[in-house]
């Protein structure tokens, strides 16, 4: 057991400005690390299953001779729902989710808000202003009342109605389809996985990358010099100055 000393000042690390090691040495050490192929395959399979790439998972399962972590038919419902969202059919997606897992939308009001927000954005994008107002009144108003953190987002969305050309307005970013839809799709995907009693709701690969980014961030804060990965996708390393 560590002996606890009751002092007023914390003993913080004094690593400021320390140089970790030369880049070449670093790369040499890194290359010595051995990662098992089996682990790599599991990570890939995990990603495919989480994100709902059923065909790819089936093929990969045969090629890499690895058993999928669950019955791949279970992916079907998540795939259907994700497809609906990608096609902008939010109401359809909501009904599907409710039919399969009736508790999700009651238990995740933030998620439900994001879905409804997307419906609203679609209406605004199509210029159906009156319907948009009615929809906002019917569904979103009460949510904004109960949850002050949602109110801000709601106000931004409704502000779009004030502009003739909403996509050039200060809140135009809300109308950009890809980012928002992907966010909501992932959110919903995660909620469904939770409802299916899965412990992990995001792919482990994503967690690994987050860990790498966080570690680099921490080292940067302490001003340590080390070989720094600038491009995650290409794995490009630069000397950090």
């Amino acid at each position, binding site marked *: *057991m560590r002996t*606890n000393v*009751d002092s*007023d000042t914390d003993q913080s690390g004094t690593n400021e400005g320390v140089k970790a090691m030369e880049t070449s040495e670093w790369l040499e050490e890194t290359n010595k690390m051995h990662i098992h192929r089996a682990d790599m395959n599991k990570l890939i399979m995990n990603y495919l299953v989480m994100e709902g790439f059923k065909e790819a998972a089936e093929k990969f399962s045969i090629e890499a001779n690895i058993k999928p972590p669950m019955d791949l038919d279970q992916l079907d419902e998540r795939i259907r729902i994700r497809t609906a969202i990608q*096609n*902008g*059919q*939010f*109401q359809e997606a909501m*009904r599907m989710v*409710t039919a399969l897992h*009736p*508790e999700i*939308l*009651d*238990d*995740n*009001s*933030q998620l*439900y808000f994001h879905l409804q927000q997307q*419906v609203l954005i*679609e*209406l605004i994008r*199509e210029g*159906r202003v009156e*319907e948009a107002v*009615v*929809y906002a*009144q*019917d*569904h979103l108003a*009460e949510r904004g009342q*109960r*949850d*002050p*953190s949602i109110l801000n987002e709601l106000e931004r969305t409704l502000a779009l109605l004030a502009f003739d050309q909403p996509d050039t307005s200060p809140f135009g970013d809300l109308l950009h389809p890809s980012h928002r839809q992907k966010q909501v799709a992932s959110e919903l995907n995660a909620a469904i996985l*939770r409802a299916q*009693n899965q*412990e992990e709701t995001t792919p482990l690969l994503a967690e690994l990358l987050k860990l790498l980014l966080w570690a680099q961030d921490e080292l940067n804060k302490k001003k340590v010099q080390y070989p720094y990965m600038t491009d995650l996708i290409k794995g490009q390393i630069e000397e950090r100055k």
Partner: protein
Amino acid sequence: MGVAVLARRDVEHSRVYIDQLYSNDSQKCFQAVSELKFAVIGSVREKGSIIEQGVVVRLLQILRAPELDILLKTEVATVLNSLAKGLPEHAAALVQAGLLPVLWEQLESCPSGGSGSAYTQMLLCCLRSIYRQGCAPPPPAWDQKLLSSLIQHGYHPPSNQECVANILAHACKTNEQQQQLVDAGGADLVACLLCSPVSRVQLPALHCLTAMCFNNERVSSIIATKSYGGKAVPDLLVGLMARDRPRDMQLAAATALTFLHRAGALSADDPRIIYKTLQCLVRMCRRDREVWERVEAANTLAYLTEVSTDLQRTAAMTDHLIHTMNDYLKDTTPPNASVPQGISVSPVSCRQYDNPSTWPELMVGAALKVYASLGANDEDIRQRVIKTDVLMNTIVTSLSAASPPVQLAAVRCLHSLSRSVHTLRTTLQDHVVWRPLMTVLKTSNNEELVTVSSSTLCNLLLEFSPSKEQILDQGAVEFLCGLTRRPHPGLRLNAVWALMNMAFQAEHRVKVSILHHLGTDQIFRLLSDTDVHILMKTLGLLRNLLSTKGHIDQIMQCHGKEIMQAIILILEGEHSAEVKEQALCILANIADGDIAKSAIMSNEDVLKKLMNYMVIPNVKLQIAATFCISNLIWNVEEGAAERQNKLREMGVYKLLQNLMTTTDTGLFDKVKTALQQFH
């Protein structure tokens, strides 16, 4: 691409599907229920509207009808589950409409072991949602059969497990229920659930375990010895407290271990308590944690360290705890705060975080409780606590302005601090704490609050406390005498004790005031009290009153007859030696008074009793009796010769001579002194 919008304000449309609910055509009915389901899920307003329209009755009717399709019933149960997840008043309305008996009845009729049944699942979900709202009235005891079948459902699959664990966690409130739950196999179920790979199951299982153990020695000892998969439950709990677990899970596991310790199943020096649980809780009090976490952890920590000095000492030196608690007293919560969604706080305290404006007060209350526990026994810790910035000011403000739970925390803290003589003489003078304390005593209806306050006041009234005079001016005497008449024995005791302290080396006017307000009748009543501690303190009070020659004479002059009666009452009654010793000491004091001596000398009965006590085989009683005699015959005083003659005639001199053979040095000295007085 067009987006179809369901305009819910379309009255025609909604009326149609609600009307169709009452249809006899099961197809139409099913469709209507489905529409209803889509309407209420996620919308608090719709839930309220549906309930207001009285639809619930029809839904219950459908559940009850034996001939109706199970798919329809499942859909209805889904709707009811969603309604139950609304506001607390929605859940309450459902309970009022008679939902619970219907659900239990339906559950019973489901084949057990039909684990895949969607209907069973929905029924359990519904029960769980109602119980989580905390509005289900707790039955005095559970129906044995119902409990057994519920527990059976809890073994498989995971969604049922989660529901059953939550139902039990929220419903288990009384001692009897705890016993029943254990007897019906609840402990085995919980042990199994703790080992589930699904965290959604583990967390309610922890809450269930906590609910079972709380304050229950028998249940706790049973649970502590249960194991699953080769691991004992306490070890499983330690695993769930690890840092890689979600915060709410760590907290729940730490609380479970705390309750097991307090109920006597795990000792304070068990490494799992002193080296794991305590640290986990202290860690969760840190500044970088969320408010709900810090409050829960601090409250649990206060409860954990309430009794054991070892735990108090360890806690006081863990991770700057005393300093961390100080932060609690100064904390301000940002305006947009809320408990993150998905966090499951314990069943007992989940509602108290609904309103963020109460959070600063919750923090203050929690910190005061921790200080109260830490400072309960150890003087060093107390001194460190007292040095805490803003503490005394917080205590004083909380005593007068805060809500009852925080008032109680403040008094508890003050009580711990008042156990320190040094503090009484210094800090507790600089901050006039007795004034708000007296106000609390006079105005509060809360029994616990008044008891702890009176105990604190008692400490403040000890001889070496400079605030004594000021307290007296506030009508404390009259108030305390009034407290001695209260039905609660704790209060009576504290009141008499306080009066006893007050009377110690007090001025004559104080003693007179006490006797005046208390009255000899009340003294008699207190001397006949069933609680022996109260009796002892009353005797102590009399003894303190009857000290200092002048006072003794004056008091005996006014109340001599009643006091002698009281003493005889004690000496003749069935009491322990300790009690009788006190009575004899009082006599000895009376024998010290110049005029008062006659009260004893003129009473042959008492003199005979004294002689009896001199020869009784109990050294302490012998010493007390001899001392009394010694005072009576003290030859410096007027009339000593006559008194000595009388006593010699009665045979006292001879008795004393016989006692010279005693082996006890204390008695020997007393006897020798007495003999020397005789001419």
